[in-house]
């Protein structure tokens, strides 16, 4: 059996009529970086706060290292939270802030001083122990908050949008730093964010949440490449999602009708008549000048006849906005190779797609 640091079983939390968290089950392996990802109001922060003991589930149970937490308060749980606005104690200096939890655990003074020094080094703030929180920048305060939580060596570290208040450049830097620190200390991190790019950068696992439920739980790659639901695809920034209907299916592939054309996709288990959605990454589409009426191409790719509506130069790629029959639209990113073909607005083009590159979304 896998070593689970945290397990949630059918956890539900209501605020009035609203189910903020609705039957969430998750198993989080030891030492993983898990991200709860979703739009605001999706229940990700409430889930995090329940793991930390700041809220209690109405039904369901949360287990830490196999032990049911019930209504155990935060000060009797082996978790620690890095708050969104840091919540550093303004009346204590940095060393006292970091040493706070150790003092509560009756650790000897000299030992506290030694471990605080070690933490200051880990978060790269050596020599700042005597400062007050207000004398530090936002990024530095963030590191102190992290050190204050890590020094007590929790089973699980909870992070509630900790980089939300930082500017973009500092954010990027802190993302890598957080990942480095997580690898160094080997503690399970549960990270809450609404930023899909941040989630992809840092996470071993991502749980995409929507309306209090987990829509999909998997590796960053799986979430991005094979979204299970239309919501996940949309939230992960997919630009091309089209309604489709299965026309014909056999063991390993299917013919689906989408935006007026029939496409072959490599997807097992579909049945004729199924209503699905088709997701295509813009960079997976290929454009050629319109040729004959036949839809099939040399390498088995299929596609649509389309018209270029507009194009946007994006440096390494050219983004084409394409109009399809029936009022549908697609975006294609084509690499700007030297000598590569360019297409002009209003020019008819052929859009091609390999069967393996289309993702069928059933949910």
């Amino acid at each position, binding site marked *: 059996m896998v070593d689970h640091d945290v397990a949630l079983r059918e956890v539900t939390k209501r605020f009035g009529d609203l189910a903020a968290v609705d039957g969430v089950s998750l198993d989080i392996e030891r030492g993983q970086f898990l991200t709860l990802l979703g739009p605001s109001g999706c229940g990700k922060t409430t889930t995090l706060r329940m793991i930390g003991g700041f809220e209690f589930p109405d039904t369901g149970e949360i287990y830490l290292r196999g032990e049911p937490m019930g209504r155990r308060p935060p*000060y009797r749980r082996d978790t620690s939270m890095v708050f969104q606005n840091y*919540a550093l*104690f303004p009346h204590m200096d940095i060393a006292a802030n970091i040493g706070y*939890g150790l003092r509560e655990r009756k650790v000897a003074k000299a030992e506290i001083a030694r471990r605080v020094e070690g933490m200051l080094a880990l978060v790269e703030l050596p020599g700042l122990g005597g400062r007050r929180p207000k004398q530090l920048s936002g990024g530095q305060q963030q590191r102190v908050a992290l050190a204050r939580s890590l020094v007590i060596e929790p089973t699980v570290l909870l992070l509630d949008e900790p980089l939300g208040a930082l500017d973009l450049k500092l954010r990027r830097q802190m993302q890598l730093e957080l990942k480095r620190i997580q690898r160094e200390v080997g503690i399970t991190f549960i990270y809450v964010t609404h930023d899909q790019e941040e989630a992809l950068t840092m996470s071993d696992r991502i749980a995409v949440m929507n309306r209090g439920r987990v829509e999909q739980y998997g590796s960053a790659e799986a979430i991005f490449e094979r979204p299970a639901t239309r919501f996940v695809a949309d939230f992960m920034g997919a630009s091309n999602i089209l309604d489709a209907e299965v026309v014909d299916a056999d063991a390993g592939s299917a013919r689906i009708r989408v935006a007026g054309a029939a496409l072959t996709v490599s997807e097992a288990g579909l049945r004729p008549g199924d209503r699905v959605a088709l997701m295509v990454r813009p960079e997976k589409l290929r454009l050629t000048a319109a040729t004959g009426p036949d839809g099939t191409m040399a390498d088995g790719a299929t596609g649509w006849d389309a018209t270029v509506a507009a194009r946007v130069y994006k440096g390494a790629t050219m983004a084409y906005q394409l109009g399809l029959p029936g009022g549908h639209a697609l975006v294609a990113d084509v690499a700007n190779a030297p000598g590569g073909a360019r297409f002009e607005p209003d020019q008819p083009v052929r859009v091609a797609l390999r069967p393996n590159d289309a993702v069928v979304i059933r949910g």
Partner: protein
Amino acid sequence: MATSTLGRRSAGTGAAPARRPPRGLPGWVAPVASIGVPVAVLVAFVLLPLVFVGVYSFYSLNEMSGLMQTDFWVGNYREVLSSDIYRRVLWRTFQIAGAATLLALVVAYPMAYALGALVDPRRQGVLVLLVIVPFWTSYIVRTFSWIGILQRDGFLQDALGWVPGLPTDLLYSRAAVLIGFVHVFLPLMILPIYASVRNLDRRLLEAAHDLGSPPWRTFLRVTLPLTLPGVVAGLVLFFIPCFGSFVTPQLLGGTGDLMMGNVIATQFGEAFNWPLGAALSIVMTLIVVVGLAIFFRFADVDQVYG
């Protein structure tokens, strides 16, 4: 006042000729009105009376006529500082005012905490109003009402006289004076503490819980230190009127509970020795001012905020 007026003017006119005052008022009107009026009020009602008292304190009494003589004589101060009686009364005044202040803190802190931290913020306004409302009734009326409650066969005895060992005949005792002080000046203690509790960041309490502090440790290590500025302000605001009070000990206290305020009132009202009363007043004022200066030097309130 002055800066906000000036700031609004420059913001309103923007890049246009900034020198021209709005609505045709001469430029000196705003600064004179906003600085001059408060200064005039303070001079007329604080500084001048104090100067008069100071001047009186150096006058003497004519031994034969008992009338005040306008000379310069330090004998009043010599009498105040050398007399055993005044020193004893001063010490007693400290004890009573100090005890009342501590008692008020014990009563006010839980109230202020509940008001600022536990009550729904939308309902706090009404409750704060209830704290202030008694201030709209005369201090003397409120003090008088305690006579009916504390006297023999009074309301307290009617209500709780059956409890064995409970003293209910409290009028003209030290306890009555303390009760009177706490009741009359309590809002002065509650309001500053309430303000600091309200400003307390709730996430700091969650952070303390998270790092392993049970509620009472959280209170000692986070809540109390962060509301200390409110406590200090409350202690000062409460202590000062008690220290100078004479109505409460006069109405509720016994002969052993007379305070400095009573002695001064007697000098002015019964002994007609205004110079001595004035000297006593000046000494009291100096004690409060110097005491406050030392207090704020040691209780460095800004430290709390770093």
